[in-house]
């Protein structure tokens, strides 16, 4: 009897592991959390897109819950999510853009064509701030709380559904 139980142990282990790994197969590796979650927004020093003489740094993001959107004129999904970002700005959410790997000319043209929900845009032509944010493809959106800590990260296109079901609740949570 005891030996039979012992023999049963192996298939049971096998089944448990198979289930565990099978579950792992259905996970989406692109849905992983940002490494910067719950950490301070990285320090930076840059000019703004509209005014090359205006210098901004990480203190720009302190004092109020802010959505930081990383975008570039070259990025098609950024154009598609602009209506959603404009809606968020209409909801009195402070929006700051990071113009990522772009030129001033093209960036400004983008904003005049697709609308400008941003209070200010950090100009990041070399992608240095983007690198420190762990951005590996625009668009990406970060929620930064009033203390300058990153609280939520959205990778890729922000759909109207994402706005309702994810972004707005997160903003409320950290306000």
């Amino acid at each position, binding site marked *: 009897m005891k030996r039979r139980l012992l023999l049963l142990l192996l298939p049971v282990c096998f089944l448990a592991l198979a289930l565990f790994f099978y579950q792992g197969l259905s996970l989406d590796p692109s849905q992983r959390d940002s490494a910067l979650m719950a950490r301070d927004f990285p320090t930076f020093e840059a000019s703004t897109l509209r005014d090359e003489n205006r210098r901004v740094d990480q203190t720009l993001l302190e004092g109020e819950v802010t959505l930081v959107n990383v975008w570039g004129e070259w990025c098609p999904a950024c154009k598609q999510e602009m209506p959603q970002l404009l809606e968020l700005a209409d909801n009195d959410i402070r929006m700051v853009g990071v113009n990522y790997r772009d030129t001033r000319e093209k960036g400004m043209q983008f904003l005049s064509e697709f609308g400008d929900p941003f209070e200010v845009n950090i100009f990041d032509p070399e992608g240095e701030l983007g690198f420190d944010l762990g951005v590996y*493809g625009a668009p990406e959106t970060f929620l930064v709380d009033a203390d300058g800590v990153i609280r939520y990260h959205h990778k890729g296109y922000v759909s109207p559904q994402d706005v309702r079901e994810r972004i707005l609740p997160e903003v409320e949570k950290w306000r």
Partner: protein
Amino acid sequence: MALMRTMAALLLLVIAFGAAAGGIELREFDDPVMEKRYHDLTASMRCPLCENQAINDSDAPISADMRERVYQLLQDGQSDIEIINHMVQRFGEYILYNPRLESRTYLLWGLPIALVLLGAMVVVLMIRARRNASAKALSAEERQRIDALTNRKGSS
């Protein structure tokens, strides 16, 4: 037909060369040790975008940025561990092909060892059980009973 085939082969060759030239940049190193470290480091990090390519093997812009950063940090005299930490801080543990041993990865590293131990334990227990069963001598009573069952004629 033969002409077509030659042209197709040529076209493939051109594409292959174009891809090779457009992909990974060549870097000059004065120090062969540093060159080796550069190659090892860029081979040990996963491209965050393409998911199953090392950054030394990937055309993604982010991989080029990461290679450039590894190169710069090497030139700055940073150690391998410092460079790896620098990258993990930004892109997460995900980029490490060899995950580090920490509370979150105990299961990952420990499971194979635990399974081997479990298997060994089962084998040992089974062998011991079998040996006990064969070594156990029959009691006098059992022997009599067997005799009774097998030599029914003799005893009657």
